């Protein structure tokens, strides 16, 4: 299904970190907040990487870094092997385009649909007004909107149509990579499935690479080829979609999977066994950041940060999987009373 015509990753993050400084209260001391903490990822052409995690885990910061809207504090992002930051924003924008969550706030209400879709062409001075007009008509066809919407305004369209406009705007630059930040979570069920089908078709047709950010694991499982699970700025598990959903490893991934409410009557609401609180990212827990919520926590989880352990199809960061290879700290795998 996914094409692996080349082994060169189209998108690569190497040890990327992003630290913000936040003040607590008017006279509070500024404290560092590690939104992204040493993240490495690589994506081959035609892959769909699903990025999942709870709010505040750093998903959207990662998207902003990829779009060039934020600079990483440390590390580098490479597109087709080229470090971005060295290339300017315009070149980057031709390669990576976003589709945002809320089609009601991401389209300018005072511009016609034609203006909205053709704006990237005008910004980049691509073609004259005739060829731009033609390009808009073509892309409308591709995303399944009638030509007559060109003269209408966002307020005259439904949520699903607006999201199609947002997709058209992203694709008119013929990007290689599309960052989809919760593209269907504001939509009704029957519209969501249309947009997911469209994204799938477009990927096959144009050999696009997606970073698909979502909190809906059922949707991620459906669309993604690889999945990365994020927790407090770290990617705690990364795997192929089959590897993750069929044999998940990290206890956090398991908890996320458990909390998916499949439409099966009579099964009741699952217990995630996660405890109540998402920790404060300004003061993350010591050792493994996940240990206070982890049902499998061991004594040394509180003190020693886990290292990435390679798995058959990616990696997992958890002491449970680092035992046999001789953990260099030598702590015994003693279960704390759970």
């Amino acid at each position, binding site marked *: 299904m996914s094409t692996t015509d080349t082994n060169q990753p189209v998108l690569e993050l190497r040890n990327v970190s992003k630290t913000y400084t936040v003040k607590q209260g008017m006279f509070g001391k500024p404290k560092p907040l590690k939104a992204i903490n040493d993240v490495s990822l690589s994506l081959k052409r035609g892959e769909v990487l699903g990025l999942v995690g*709870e709010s505040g885990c750093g998903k959207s910061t990662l998207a902003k870094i990829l779009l060039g809207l934020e600079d990483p504090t440390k590390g580098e992002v490479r597109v087709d092997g080229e470090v971005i930051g060295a290339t300017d924003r315009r070149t980057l924008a031709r390669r990576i385009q976003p589709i945002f969550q809320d089609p009601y706030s991401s389209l300018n209400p005072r511009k016609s649909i034609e203006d909205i879709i053709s704006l990237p062409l005008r910004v980049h001075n691509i073609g004259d007004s005739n060829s731009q007009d033609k390009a808009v008509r073509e892309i409308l066809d591709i995303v399944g909107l009638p030509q007559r919407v060109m003269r209408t305004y966002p307020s005259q369209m439904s949520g699903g149509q607006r999201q199609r406009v947002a997709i058209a705007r992203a694709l008119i630059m013929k990007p290689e990579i599309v960052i989809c930040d919760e593209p269907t979570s504001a939509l*009704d*069920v029957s519209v969501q499935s249309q947009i997911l089908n469209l994204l799938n078709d477009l990927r096959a047709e144009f050999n696009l690479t997606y970073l698909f950010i979502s909190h809906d*694991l*059922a949707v991620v499982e459906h669309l993604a080829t690889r999945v990365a699970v994020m927790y407090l700025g770290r990617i705690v598990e990364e795997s192929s979609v089959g590897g993750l959903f069929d044999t998940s490893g990290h206890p956090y991934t398991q908890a996320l999977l458990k909390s998916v409410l499949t439409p099966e*009557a*009579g099964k*009741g609401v699952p217990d995630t066994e996660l405890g109540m609180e998402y920790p404060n990212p300004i003061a993350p827990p010591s050792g493994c950041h996940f240990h206070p919520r982890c049902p499998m926590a061991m004594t040394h989880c509180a003190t020693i940060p886990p290292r990435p352990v390679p798995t058959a199809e990616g990696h997992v960061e958890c002491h449970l999987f680092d035992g046999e290879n001789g953990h260099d700290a030598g702590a015994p795998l003693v279960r704390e009373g759970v």
Partner: protein
Amino acid sequence: MNSPLLRVKDLTIDIPVGGGTLNAVRGIDFDLNRGETLCIVGESGSGKSLTSLALMGLLGGRIKRTATQMDFDGIDLTKANNKTMRALRGDRMAMIFQEPMTSLNPAFTIGNQLMEALLLHRNVGKDAARARAVELLEKVGITAAESRLSQYPHQLSGGLRQRVMIAMALMCEPELIIADEPTTALDVTIQAQILRLLVDLGREMNMAMILITHDLGVVARVADKVAVMYAGELVETGSAEQVFNAPMHPYTRGLLRCIPQPGKTERGARLGTIPGIVPNLVGGVTGCPFRTRCDQAVAACRDAIPHRKPAENHRFRCVHETGHQTAEAAV
């Protein structure tokens, strides 16, 4: 005890708009027993939120509500005046809204807002109200409850705020809770916890609950009864097992095909869709409102649509007896 806590017959809601009347809700019936959970599921604009507001008597002045029957534990809500409704709301029936950010008052402390209903409806002192507030915050799983009372809504996370909303609704031990998309704005992990909490508390206090949502997963896991709403009508009602395992109405079947189901839907395969858009509900609506989007539609769908009853407590509205077009009608 045998008569239902809530019985609604032929509830209709009309909204005057520029070009005429918007027939937002048209003749819906349901009833609800103590301790039961009814999920009303439907897409935006189907009238599910209006229905809940109509029950609470919270519709705006220009909106017209009629019903042949709307009884809450023997009280006729169609005839209830403002004073009666005010005495019921927050006491015997309470509501949990979707956005805890906008439905909590940012200018008052959590404690203040929690205690308000109890001080208003019950003859209790401040200390007793305070103790009850702490008790309920602990019940909904909030740690350091005592210190939370003096905090303001902005100091709490989304999950915590939604728990405060639930605690607030429970202050007077209501017999009926109406929750409008209570977990839509939350993370999946928090959603599961909040739903468990609601279900457990409902059982413990023998509360009836109406849960309004567009999430079929939530419905399947929480509901005793399900009502599928489309364009202002209940197109199918039944137990969760009936509606999910043997859906009859083409709209219900269509919705279930739209969502990827782990383990059942092939990864990357095309999902089912429901083409078209919801009809305009301004000016008389006749026939089946779903017929323009329905793959089973026939000419007879423009006429009056019969109520069908495939099993005890399972009802749907469709011209086709099985919800499917028969061979002869297809010709």
